């Protein structure tokens, strides 16, 4: 079936402002938006730029805005979008580098800022593993599947408004470590996050939950952390 792909184009070197370019592609059942982009790059316009690697929804490279929502291009069946024109934009809220590739450095900076690693001053009791019950593992099980695709943070209107806001992805990571029974860094992280650019910028707008390809529901973790701060303080 012939679909039109309306793709955001931008090259800072060209001096041209960003614009949309239309491509018509014959899409077959089973083909993903990433497949289509590949086809366009191979046979229509080699200059089209986008990121991709695993093409199986695990590396997080190909997050972009498809028909107005953040998605992984490699997981999105083109025909299932059920629109004759598919609009493809870069992730909103980040500086576009070129075409569909955006500058993710601010995203990683936020991740680094929340101490994204196990904090535990006590050495393990044995030289074997620290114990953790399956129930305790289950508490963090959803959050460990985050692939850092940035879909959530990029979909968050609070992040659009305040670029210093930590954003859902970093907060999910803070949750993931803080609620790991082997971690002792909760207080340290909460101190970081109880701040004008931290937890309180989340107004439960919920875009992040829809955007997350791993169905992590970042707002759940954020709510946990908010309550924890309040609990500790008052």
């Amino acid at each position, binding site marked *: 079936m012939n679909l039109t792909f309306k793709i955001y184009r931008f090259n*800072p*070197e*060209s001096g041209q402002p960003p614009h949309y370019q239309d491509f018509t592609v014959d899409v077959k*059942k*089973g083909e*993903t938006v990433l*497949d289509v982009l590949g086809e366009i*790059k*191979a*046979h229509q*316009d*080699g*200059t089209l*730029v986008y990121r*991709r*690697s*695993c*093409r*199986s*929804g*695990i*590396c*997080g*490279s190909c997050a972009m805005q498809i028909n107005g929502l953040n998605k992984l291009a*490699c*997981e*999105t*069946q083109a*025909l*299932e979008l059920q629109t004759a024109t598919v609009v493809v934009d870069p992730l909103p809220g980040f500086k576009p*580098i*070129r075409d569909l*590739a955006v500058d993710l450095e601010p995203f*990683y900076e936020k*991740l*680094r800022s929340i*101490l*994204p*690693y*196990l904090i535990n001053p006590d050495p*393990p009791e044995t030289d*074997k*593993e*620290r*114990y*953790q*019950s*399956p129930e*305790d*593992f289950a508490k963090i*099980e959803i959050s*460990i*599947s*985050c*692939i*850092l695709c940035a879909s959530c943070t990029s979909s968050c209107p609070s992040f659009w408004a305040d670029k210093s806001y930590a954003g859902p992805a970093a907060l999910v990571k803070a949750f993931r*470590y803080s609620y*790991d029974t*082997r*971690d002792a860094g909760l207080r340290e992280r909460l101190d970081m996050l109880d701040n004008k650019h931290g937890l309180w910028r989340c107004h439960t707008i919920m875009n992040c939950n829809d955007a997350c390809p791993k169905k992590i529901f970042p707002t759940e973790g954020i709510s946990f952390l908010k309550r924890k701060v309040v609990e500790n303080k008052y």
Partner: protein
Amino acid sequence: MMVHNHEVVIIGAGLAGTRAALEAAKVADVAVLSKIFPSRSHSGAAQGGMAAALGNLDDDNWEYHMFDTVKGSDYLGDQDAAEILAKEAPEVIYEMEHMGAPFSRTPEGKIAQRKFGGHTLNFGEKPALRACYSADYTGHILLHTLFEQCIKQGVRFYSEYQVVHLIVKDDICRGVVAWDIRNGGLQVFRAKAVMFASGGYGRAYRITTNAHANTGDGLDLALRAGLPLEDMEFVQFHPTGIYRNGILMTEGARGEGAYLLNKDGERFMKRYAPTLMELAPRDLTARAIQTEINEGRGCQTPEQKAQGIPGDFVDLDLSHVSEAKLRAVLPQIFDLARNFAGVNVAKEPTPIQPTAHYSMGGLPVNVDGQFIRDAKNTPVRGLYAAGECACVSVHGANRLGCNSTQDATLNGRRTGRTIARDVPHLSWEDVPAEDVKAAEKDLDWYYQANGSENVADLRTRLQDTMMVNCGIYRNEKDLKTQLGIIKELQGRGKKIGVKDKSKCFNSEVMEAMELGHLLNFSEVIVIGAIERQESRGAHARTDFPTRDDAKWLKHTLAYQEPDGRIRLDYKPVTITRFQPKERKY
């Protein structure tokens, strides 16, 4: 040109690269270069697990693990390396756990372990519970844990830097030249120690489980620097990849009772493995599927049927298993089949075909991760490697499931330690001007390429023909045909056109460079395969169907001569505890 000086430069940020960085960064200034963001590395795709004889659920011990690894390798694996792998694996797992890796747990709270193909107790007696895992995204949690530890230690990452040239002179490695993908410039990374951790090359094949980034760059860079590659002819195929894109459908599907059906709806495995049926070992099953396809019994798409073209896939059918059960035990199968084949597994069969999965061969290294440049095991000063790009050789002719995440992490760690040990004794060497010039000329060539050949088409042609002529089954005639095709493609590769002249994130140039790598090392795979006149592990020759230890119990080393010809040499296999026997399961 910008010159960076870092004592240690690591190419690749997968399990091997990040694990090594953590060790080396304890004593030295380390930079990790990766052409994609570290957390995007393909290690994150590993689902099944990471092998270690912890014995959390049975009476496992490292000797069993070593034996299985050696036997799995069809006795081509070096046994000193396999012994180290089996012995150190538990420590590596515990260390990962202490760093925070979230493993699935047993009811008592220990790390849970599951069965995996080829891993047994008591030298083949019964299946062992040896694979440590985290749901079905083990590689993902390992990679992210290591990446986050690197953040903690302040390891310096250069993300989206593609290494394009390795600087080796007088058998001393002096650094690399990298291309800053975002800004387009070349930069010299001068280093006392350079380590490759650049991963696998599945992209030489059309149907592969591997990521787009897995183009075997490191292998070709070494080859061009006059260094050898080892055992490149051994390419592992996984039996069940989703049709047309090769994405892995886990062995678990067959574990839950999936049927493999040909176009007549026949469970053809009864002709290949009457008792085990669909649960036969990976290589056997892959060969069975390939035989069905080759002999015209593959399933056909409607278009193929209409045009009378023989089909090139078989069906993996789960429709007889209850949906509730499938959702409970194989949730990911639903997503994968839906997202990548547009199929509902509870109702329709998923089209599948064997898929290129893992490279057993690679950059020759000793058990300490030092690069070896000849059959006498002479190390190259300042050059190291680990992970899938390296060949220690633990996996020999065939890798066991769950052994490669362990190999990458464990040998990444060992190599990092070796580097930490060596760095104080290594000196800063000059970077020869001709290397920088060569790299510049190379890049300019791509920017100026105005020919008529299309990069994507050449790549597709290589991938398609590698699949057919150098895939699961091989024979001299097809391999020679393939060598001819590669030569032809190399010629056409000199006439490519690159439309994009921009400095900024020029992924067209990037893909063109990667095509160059693919074409170069694929030639080594094919030549190694032509020469090796036996069937061993993943290398199945229809014209030489048996293993020949008298002649071929040895590693292949391949060099590229200055005139571009590939020269082969051989190196003995290290055998310590286990004498080669026939491999039966």
